[in-house]
Structures are given as C-alpha cells and as structure tokens.
C-alpha cells in the first residue's frame, strides 16, 4: 500500500519567513510532485521531480523552490512567505516510466501566512 506522508497537516507562518514543507513516499517512486489546491482554481502544479536532484518547473513555480536529495523525500521551500501563498499544499508520487500513471497523494498541508 503506497504511503505518502507530509510533515505537517497545519502550519501558520509569518510574512517573510522561510518555510519548508516535507514529503516522503515509501514506494520507491521516481516521480514526485508538489501542487497547491485552491477553491475555484483546482490543483496547480508547482514543481515536479523525476529523479534525485532533478526538477522541472510546473505551472506556478514563482516564489517556490524544491529540493530532492534522496529518492523518497521531496521538499517544497517558500523562500520568503507571502499572504498569497496561503493555501493547501499537496504532495504526490508516481512510478517512473512511459506515460502518466496513477499519482498517489499525501494528506495535504494547510499553510496560513499572516
């Protein structure tokens, strides 16, 4: 059974703080993803990683960076948090290979920036 865990369910940070969101998967998946989920906007891809130390920008990478030093862990970094980054953040993973396969999601981190 695939398990994707995220370090926090709820997080409150102040404007300007550096924020780390952590995601760990235990199924040896090559691909990992970070999305933000906002009402009326659906899920939007922030960053995607297809291998250790490899990353690719998604649709809304501005204000974010990522780190993948180990295969099982994918971190999302907000260099200087702003109020418009208040959102639900979802991590997902999927096996590598050709074509889109099922993505497995974590429970989400609800981040509030005040």
């Amino acid at each position, binding site marked *: 059974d695939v398990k994707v865990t995220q370090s926090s369910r709820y997080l409150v940070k102040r404007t300007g703080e550096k924020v780390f969101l952590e995601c760990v998967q235990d199924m040896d998946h090559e691909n990992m993803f970070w999305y933000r989920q906002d009402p009326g906007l659906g899920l939007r*891809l922030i960053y*995607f990683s297809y291998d250790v130390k490899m990353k690719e920008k998604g649709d809304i990478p501005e204000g974010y960076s990522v780190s993948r030093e180990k295969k099982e862990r994918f971190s999302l970094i907000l260099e200087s948090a702003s109020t418009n980054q208040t959102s639900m953040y979802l991590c997902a993973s999927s096996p590598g290979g050709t074509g889109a*396969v099922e*993505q*497995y999601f*974590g429970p*989400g981190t609800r981040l509030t920036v005040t």
Partner: protein
Amino acid sequence: AQRVTQPEKLLSVFKGAPVELKCNYSYSGSPELFWYVQYSRQRLQLLLRHISRESIKGFTADLNKGETSFHLKKPFAQEEDSAMYYCALSGRGNEKLTFGTGTRLTIIP
C-alpha cells in the same frame, strides 16, 4: 497548451437520480484522461482512467474525441458519492497531469 474545463463548480443531485459531471479538454495530441475524487477528510485518489475502461463504484466515463469530452456518469446516485471530483489530463507519454477546477457533488437524501 493543454487545458481541462469543468463547467460546474457545484452540483446537487437527489439520491437515486442519475449523475453526470462534465469535463471538456483541449489537447492537440492523444490525451489520457482521468477522474480523481476527494471525499471529506480523505486524500485525493484516482477514481478511474479512460484507458482501463472500468466501472468504479458504479461510475463510468467515456472519452469522446469528437466532442473532446470525458464526462463522468452514474445511473443512481448514492449519499456516499458526495465529494469533490477532479478531471485530469496528460499527454501520451507525459507523466504530468493537468487538473480541472473541480466539481463539488452533493447528494441530497
């Protein structure tokens, strides 16, 4: 550019009535289409994909390339179907998904 449109943000249906959640897409190549579902207090999970042509929890979806649609249907709604539903698309061979904005389905007892 690829795009997924779910025209209904909210949909309410009586228990036992048919359900149809609409999804239209824009993609120039051969798409792969998916429906994901998020029940209350649960994580987002795959419901079905067009390539497997399965029926999951009574739901089916047919890819109509002529109308560029992938509508989700169920003949008789159940209360446990209340959830948030997302349609998603990927290009053939592409491992990234583009999601629609979602439809919140409420089944009225």
